[in-house]
């Protein structure tokens, strides 16, 4: 049922763009907003509706970094890898997260509770290094503060499920 509703919204968005092929990026953005990521079934569906070859849709979806083709974990940590953040030591923070939670950048933990993504600059360079934990931006981030924030997140989940 829930899925159907999302499809209806997506279908409506395509209709608003009069099924124009040039609106492909807009549609992919909308689809990712609704589903969190773009799986093959969804991409096929979009290619059928916009009357585009599936290879074209897949090509576009994989070309742009913003589109996710794998299901992300329950919680998202995004590290800004802009120049200012790099110069101010974001690499150390990223390696610390990788070590602590046993995952690699671009991937998720085995239990799919945490994903670690890299983004190329969120534009808050004066506050570098920046780490985004779920929706919250942590500016002038330190290794300790970030690890603590992530652990806190997991702590809260435990309380809920107990």
């Amino acid at each position, binding site marked *: 049922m829930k899925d159907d509703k999302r499809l209806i919204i997506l279908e409506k968005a395509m209709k608003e763009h009069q099924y124009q092929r040039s609106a492909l*990026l807009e549609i992919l953005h909308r689809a990712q907003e609704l589903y969190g990521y773009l799986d093959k079934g969804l991409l096929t569906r979009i290619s059928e509706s916009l009357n585009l070859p599936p290879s074209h849709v897949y*090509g576009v979806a994989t070309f*742009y970094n913003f*589109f996710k083709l794998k299901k992300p974990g329950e919680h998202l940590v995004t590290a800004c890898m802009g*120049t200012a953040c790099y*110069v101010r030591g974001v690499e150390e923070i990223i390696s610390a997260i990788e070590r602590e939670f046993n995952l690699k950048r671009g991937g998720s933990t085995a239990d799919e509770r945490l994903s670690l993504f890299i983004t190329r600059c*969120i*534009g808050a360079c004066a506050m570098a290094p920046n780490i985004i934990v779920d929706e919250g931006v*942590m500016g002038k981030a330190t290794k300790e503060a970030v690890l603590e924030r992530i652990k806190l997140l997991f702590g809260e989940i435990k309380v809920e499920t107990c």
Partner: protein
Amino acid sequence: MKPADILKIAETEQNLQRSYKYRINVCCSSGCVPFGALKVLKAFEDAVKEFGVQKECKVARTGCIGTCSLGPAVVVEPGDYLYQSVTPEKAREITRDHVVLGLPLKNFLYSNEAFFKKQLRLVLRNAGKIDPLRIEDYIARGGYSALVKCLTKMSPQEVIDEISISGLRGRGGAGFQTGQKWNFVTRAHGSPKYVVANLDEGDPGVFANRTLAEADPHAIIEGMLIAAHAIGAEQGYIYIRAEYPLAIETLKKARDQAKSLNLLGENVLETPLKFDVELRLGAGAFVAGEETAILASVEGHRAMPRPRPPYPATSGLWGKPTLIQNVETLANVPLIVLNGGAWFSRIGTSRCTGTKCFSLTGKVKNPGLIEVPMGTTLREVVFDIGGGVPDGRTFKAVLVGGPSGGCLPEVLLDLPIDYESLTKAGAIMGSGGIVVIDDESCMVDTAKFFTDFCVDESCGKCVPCRVGLVKVEKIFEGIIRGEGRMGDLTILEKTGDYIGEASLCGLGQTAPNPVLTTLRYFKDEYVSHIVDKKCPAGKCFKNGKEASET
């Protein structure tokens, strides 16, 4: 809505604003919001009510004030008192002491006058002064009066001539004469014609365009409207990065407001001009900022550049004549129309007129958004405005122009900022990023970082860029592992030259810049990595060390 009505709105709003004795501008841009700017805004609104001064004191939500590292930033007018790192508690104190009692709180004031002294804020004229979500604020400060002047008093050719006289050059990096470009599009055959505003600020470490959109969205829309009048375009697109949600939201609202005042749509201000603007979201591709790649992206394709000619001016979106301008270029346009091209041409240097916005970041005391006249030296930017390197460390290099810019050493700091001087030194203007690097950073590692970035972002069309950059990356990996040979440096230099010469678009042409400039100016660091197996900054060989320790 007629042209004269715009002037009426301005008058009404000015009268309303004059009725307030104080105005508190709270910066609510992407730099300040994560640090509680919205709570501070709310605290000011509450405090003003608490002390019963709503009628004398206006609290406004504004865009970036510029001092992004000390957010949330708040300015109290009159007198432009700038408060830094404001908290909700401080907000109440400021309202009580400054607004009610008339005593500014000296302890909370921003004390670094040098930050603003050498700046000239033309493009950022309204940033931090107006509420970007209120079109009336923009109109009260002379907004849309340039459009009114164009529509009522100037022919399209007169507008183009004024832009030509001003000497304005494209702010996206290439520095092409704007007036000349407008003439090309005007003379091109084909209809409809399009205007594309480029807000795909893909350079990591740069946020000048985003800040402009968040602080003064109508300046961009007005610039597009004037361009549309001049070249005869009917449809405009603003291509913006999806990573900038607040800027997207702000621009959408601005467009809707402009529409409701009949500034967009059919018969703009009851004149024959027909022009509308749509937003198109990018999706994280650095190369999409290139002018032919942006067109492919707007059309829904992969953002891959194509050979020129034909130039977009003759064959752009869907094969029609298209004017592509960076948003900063567009924001200059209303000023030139209002004050005349001759006025603008006197600012900056003779070959590079006007100002340039830079995001000043990295190891610098006062990072933030700045705007300086062309011809200002890098030393003035880094040491006078930026306050130099913090924490007692030493300046090593300044990276100008983003990931495909150049790393310039201290001896070149007296270089004036203009397109030609920067290119000659091996850097580029780019979209305006200045990153300061201190002695903690290794230049070999830094050059590798940018090469990695360009490898990731290469669209894969041209072999020199796709294959050559990977080859360069491998050589760097070898050097950093301690397996480098002196012969590698010659290979790096040669490969870099080939990539630059044989690539189609700006990305490939400039991608070797960080490698070539670090080789030119910091060769000793490469040599000590290769010969002594030592990293002067202590950044590389860490894995090796750990391995030997265990």
